[in-house]
């Protein structure tokens, strides 16, 4: 294993971003695409699951509070069917309980809104490295 010094891993892995705030999705899509990341978006859990069924993504960034199936339930579904995919949870409503619940359900990390984009990109890179390392087994 080596310590890569760039966004190499994040650029090799496809990324899915799930949030019901469409404006936020659009902004993040633009920003992350400019960094060379292959990103697609979904506006809720069911769309995300369909997207995963069609083409499983390595890293998923998902909002905790979404109408319908919330982020934690969606995380549990994704980890059940695609255990090697790494999920980063986002939330605008910080709560230790929901943070820990996310981690117990298999989230890779937890990020607070408003997003520090640099921090999120680095978390995506770390999640992508883990995903690639697990793929090799």
């Amino acid at each position, binding site marked *: *294993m080596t*310590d890569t*010094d760039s966004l190499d891993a994040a650029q090799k892995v496809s990324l899915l971003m799930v949030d019901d705030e469409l404006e936020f999705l659009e902004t993040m899509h633009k920003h992350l695409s400019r960094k060379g990341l292959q990103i697609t978006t979904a506006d809720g859990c069911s769309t995300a699951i369909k997207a995963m069924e069609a083409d499983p993504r390595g890293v998923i960034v998902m909002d905790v509070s979404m109408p319908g199936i919330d982020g934690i339930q969606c995380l549990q579904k994704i980890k059940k069917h695609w255990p090697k995919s790494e999920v980063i949870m986002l939330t605008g409503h910080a709560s*230790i309980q929901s*943070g820990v619940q996310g981690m*117990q359900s298999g989230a890779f990390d*937890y990020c*607070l809104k408003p997003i520090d984009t640099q921090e999120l990109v680095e978390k995506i890179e770390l999640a992508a490295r883990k995903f690639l390392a697990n793929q090799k087994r």
Partner: protein
Amino acid sequence: MGTFLSKLQQLFFPSAPSHSLEELQQRFLDNYSHFRELLTANNNALEAMAEMEQALLQGRNFSMAFIRAKSTVVAVNVFKMIENLRYVADGKYSALVPAYETIQREIDALLDQGPEPVDGAWVLPLDAVNRASVALSGEKMANLGEAGHVNNVSIPEGFVISSAAAQAVLQQNRLLTEINRIFQQTDSHNLEDMHRRSHDVQQLIQRCTLPDELEKEMYKHFDQLEAKYGAPLEIAVRSSALGEDLGHASFAGLYQTELNVDREQLVQAYKTVLASTYSTRAMTYRLAKGYRHEHMLMGVGCLVMIKATMSGVSYSSSPGGDSHYLDIYCSPGSARGIVEGTKETFLVQVSRTPPFTQRDSDRNNERKACPLTNAQRTLIATTVMDLERHFGAPQDVEWSIDSSGKLFILQSRPISTLFLEQDEPAQQIHTDAQPLLQDGVTACPGGGSGPVRVVRNTVDLLSFPRKAILVVEHPLPEWAPLLKRASALVATTGSAAGHLATIAREFGLPTLLAVKDALKVLNNDQIITVDASHRVIYDGCIKELCVTPATSQSSPMQGSPVEQTMKQVLHHITPLTLTDPGSPFFRSSYCTTLHDITRFCHEKSVTEMFRFGERYRYVKGAAKRLVDNMPMEWWVINLADGFSEGFNASEKYINISDIASSPMLAIWNGMHAFPWKGPPQVSFRGMGSILFQSTRNPGLDPAVRSAMIQKNYFLVSRNYCNLSVRLGYHYAMIEAYISSLRTERYVTFRFKGGAADEERRVARVALLTDLLNEFEFRVDQIGDALTARVEKRSLEFLYSRLQVLGYLSIHTRQIDMVMADSGQQQRYRDTFSRDIKEMLSHDGHRFP
């Protein structure tokens, strides 16, 4: 016998589980991967802890959202550390889980604490209210009711809709959870977001229904008053929140007051005042003062309107600082124009004792042509002094006189701030600069500079830039959200008795009011300096005049509920009680704070990684002795890619040229930058101290073996290095992860112990603390132990700090023996500082 011996042997020396080389290699890589995740989580947790501590110690402004967000970052990362430690330790340390869950529950309870439930009547007649009923009536009505019990003091008749009623309204409409949800998502730094969310919450309250029983009670009390005063009755509906009108937080004018309310408008007016609990101005003020939105419950006073011929505000002790006088601000008609600063206001100062002689000076336009008669002046002064005596502190009193000449007290509260005397006329003290205006009334002294921004409406308010000069026509309370953003306030009208002036003083914002030509002379973006103390506005920026008023509080949040919550939460997060890994109490079950858990997890994970090679007889994970001419043993364990590709893993020795770990090379460079001059010359007394300590502390005896003590170990990968070093009698640990990802980068240093007595050991640590602070480390010193840390800085910066630590770990050994001599201390400090600067000035040391 053989079986017994083999069982005994297995008990004390369990044989390594049998694995193929490939399995071992994979297991080692997996462990390293989890170890790295643990280090990153440790980095993030410690950074968030430091941010919380700094916010508190530096008296910065922080919100509940900040405490929640940072506590969550700490808690989530500590959870990750436990998970990762348990992975590398094959499931050991299960006691960490309950320890963590206990701490998490305690923090959650503090963060989710709702308002105390209030029991009691929903509506109370005002004459039944006094200070004892504050929890039900709110501060303003409790004070007013109490004032009504003072001899010869009259207050308007009325009733109070209690905080218990407000709680019932919120509960019946299930609004508390919804309001909390909305505010937890609010970006408190974004005024526009705050304004939008405030509007949403106020709409929810405006649209809610009141419990039938409450409506009935409200109408019953209204009808009783109407029967007495005659229909149609009009009342004033005024806020009386819990925590409003306190000495250190006046909330002046931040909640709504509805005037001339008739029976038909009663319910809607009540809801409007209730909803103003969540107005933008009240919310920004609470954030600045450290109040929790979710704890605010509003009592509401309903008072018979006084047909005022004259109204005013009086301070029983002149806030100007001359305590022999009391100030009376007055104006014909109602008091509203005075407190909102829209009306011409007159000021008269009289002595605080009978016969209340008028002060013989004319300091500014507020004093001209006072419309009060001598009899009125005496009546007001007598009543205000009676109130001060009754409440036991100088009072800020709002009053009205009706057409019959009767004086009514509308409000009495402690004076929230003091400001400076302004006896001299407006005075230019900066002779070189061009005065644009020389006029006005000082509402808060001091000076501020910046670009002018005229604010006329909400659009202007929402786009107000930080550090601009706020220029308005009238000093209305609705501009209060800008007082923390502006560098000074100027208005064309107003007096020191206005609500906005009171809040400006609480925030220490230089404020100059009644500058008649301000809007004619000042233009947007023009850079000006406001010298509020001397009532002069200059063109351009004059830094010498930008002074914070001496009267402003050191931290507006001091002693506030949010600050209290921060302290209580930090009590479960930051104290470090597990400091000594050699102690029998350094156990998972003894972790009482999240910091303890991070310390424990870090220590044990390093040990687990260190022991892997030995435990599994994995040669690649075993230590190699470094070939070097220093009189110490250095051993290196490769965790991943810390050795050059050509190095033969079965070798027992390694040369520095085969080390590929950039942080280790940086430390090594610092260690070798200057030769060690040997131990210091020790006096007989110094040596005596060492011998005495050696007899008391077996840990100081080099003959006592412990896993990582006798040899100095580097655990390395290309970007990581952990050095455990025992030099002389002290223990030091340097650790760094230097990757291109900012989130992973850090350098940390721990140091403890020594051979000399405690005083000298502490002196050495103090010297180290001093030096590390000089080189921008964040240092925590407890006794003779210190922890220093820098994280998420540039690569160049972090490599240079590793050189500093390498240098210090060699050159500070044994100097504790001479630390009793302050001259020696200073000489060492100067030498170290000079050497380090010289070392860092050399170009050509690059370690990536």
